[in-house]
């Protein structure tokens, strides 16, 4: 386990620098002069331009700029917005809402997705199974923002069960957005756990367990589920990336003051530094989550430690 852990962490380092560099370089190659954009139609005097270039190191080559940037990021400095406010402060304000939303969505995914998948897998070929297969396929096909508006109209406006938008009622106002955010991954998890369970149920060890006289509950609950959940766990890590993209859309639709909406507002206001800062932060979170799940995966499935 120790060697596996070390190898995973070592692999993480180049990916970390590579991904942050990629974002930085993609922004760097974009056309447009950030200083000219500051001044509007009237050009700035040349010495002001030069002073600004020196202050933000814009006259340095790409790799040096990246070096300065990544050193700052590792010290928790994600840059400032146009008014000079550190992006980190904005993130501190907005992060709690997003974390709550993501946790609630994760909860829905795991509880509803797994239950539906397992029940469908056990009753393969029966009515509930077909219901799960068809409904998940439909959910996968509906883009998240269409689903969000539909939920708003039906559950917020017509039925009035949930707040339509905003964050005035705390956790309760997060219920509907979290459900919308969870829906896509929920469908995938249901299908994945169903398939995995069905495959494992045909395995020899299941036959052995049955032959030993164990009841169905034990055969499925103890023997099969543990093996079937391994791919689901892997999926949950990758899913975090989808949750982030989804959070930007969901928070925008439901008007939640989270990180996702901060990204949206920053794109509207053309605050490049804020967009890049938050995106870098999210990608770092995503990478760390992937690393953690890799380690967890090694614990769950000893085979992959010995490759």
């Amino acid at each position: 386990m120790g060697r596996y852990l070390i190898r995973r962490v070592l692999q993480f380092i180049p990916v970390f620098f590579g991904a942050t560099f990629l974002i930085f370089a993609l922004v760097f190659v974009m056309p447009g002069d950030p200083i000219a954009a500051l001044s509007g139609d009237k050009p700035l005097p040349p010495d002001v331009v030069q002073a600004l270039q020196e202050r933000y190191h814009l006259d340095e080559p790409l790799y040096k700029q990246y070096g300065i940037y990544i050193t700052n990021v590792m010290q928790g400095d994600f840059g400032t917005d146009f008014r000079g406010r550190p992006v980190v402060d904005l993130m501190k304000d907005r992060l709690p809402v997003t974390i709550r939303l993501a946790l609630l969505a994760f909860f829905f995914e795991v509880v509803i997705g797994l239950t539906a998948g397992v029940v469908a897998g056990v009753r393969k070929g029966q009515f509930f199974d077909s219901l799960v297969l068809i409904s998940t396929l439909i959910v996968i096909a509906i883009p998240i923002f269409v689903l969000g508006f539909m939920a708003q109209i039906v559950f917020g406006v017509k039925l009035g069960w949930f707040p339509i938008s905003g964050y005035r009622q705390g956790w309760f106002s997060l219920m509907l957005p979290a459900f919308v955010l969870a829906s896509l991954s929920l469908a995938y998890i249901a299908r994945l756990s169903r398939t995995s369970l069905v495959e494992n149920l045909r395995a020899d060890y299941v036959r052995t367990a049955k032959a030993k006289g164990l009841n169905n509950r034990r055969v499925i609950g103890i023997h099969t589920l543990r093996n079937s959940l391994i791919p689901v766990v892997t999926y949950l890590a990758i899913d975090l990336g989808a949750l982030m993209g989804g959070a930007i859309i969901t928070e925008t639709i439901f008007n939640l003051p989270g990180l996702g909406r901060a990204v949206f507002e920053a794109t509207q206001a053309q605050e490049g530094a804020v967009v890049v800062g938050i995106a870098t932060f999210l990608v770092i979170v995503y990478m760390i989550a992937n690393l953690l799940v890799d380690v967890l995966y090694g614990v769950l499935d000893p085979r992959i430690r010995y490759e």
Partner: protein
Amino acid sequence: MSDDPSKESQEANDGTIGDESHLYADTVGEHLPVDVVTAAGDESTEKHQFRQTPGVAVGLDELPRNASLWGDAWRQLRRQPIFLISAVIIVVLIIISMFPGFFATHDPHQCNLIDSLLKPSSEHWFGTDLQGCDYYSRTIYGTRVSISIGIIVVFFVSIIAIVGGSVSGYYGGSVDSIIGRITDIWFVIPTILGGIVILSLVSTRGVGTVSLVLIVLGWATLLRLVRSSVLAVKANDYVDAARAMGASNTRIIVRHVLPNAIAPVIIVSAIYVGVIIAAEAALSFLGVGLQLPAISWGLMISNAQRRIITAPYLLVFPGAFLTLTVFSFILMGDALRDALDPKLR
């Protein structure tokens, strides 16, 4: 009880595939959409795929005589209602996107403010939007953007993935490591998030810009898939035989490896068209995709959101078209998988 039960189950699967094909038929169906996502970074998932793909290779050898994989697949597809339905919808959508003027009842850019926000009627089938434009005609013209971005992006992504993936999988060694590490890096950048970052910095965005960004961000998943598929095919005897007969590496890849490794790529590409169409709509919805006066379902939905209570039809029609389009590409992928995955036979 063995201490390594799931490995056993894998072997058990390989052994029983032939006899239980009827049982297996509807379970295989879900593998790919998830694999698309789970083909991600870690080697463990790749291993998972390797273990499965040798089954594909064995299956190919066991096909009945006089039937190529494609001939067989086609025969099965023709009998499958899911395939027929999704194929018809996709063909209709492509025709609409090529000749939108033929289907539209009005000029989508000619709007009368006096007709603002009319409800659906016999004159305006889907009603009119705030500017008084005929909403049906706009929805029809929106097909063009979605379908073209979906097809352009997936076309180029497939080329990158097939070239990169087969080089990486076939030659192995340091080329494989380099491509593998680059893919790892690309993999941790979620498409929508990366798209927002890049596109928010571009002031004028058309179909070309959005497609380019989605290509730049979207190739990693598919490349991994091609690589693992090529790796599995490469292990076959006929590849050794071709090499022994003096075939060049390029010839082996093009004539022997790729034709046998391409099936999973086609399946995922079909699904991917749907995914890309949804991504474009999401970006346009967030205001970083296409810009007015372009006609895009994402933009239409974005503009409709302020009126979801007074004029819900503004949301419903483009939303329904978008969903139907994505849905039919995903269904198509499902049907193709059922036909092309020889494990089912």
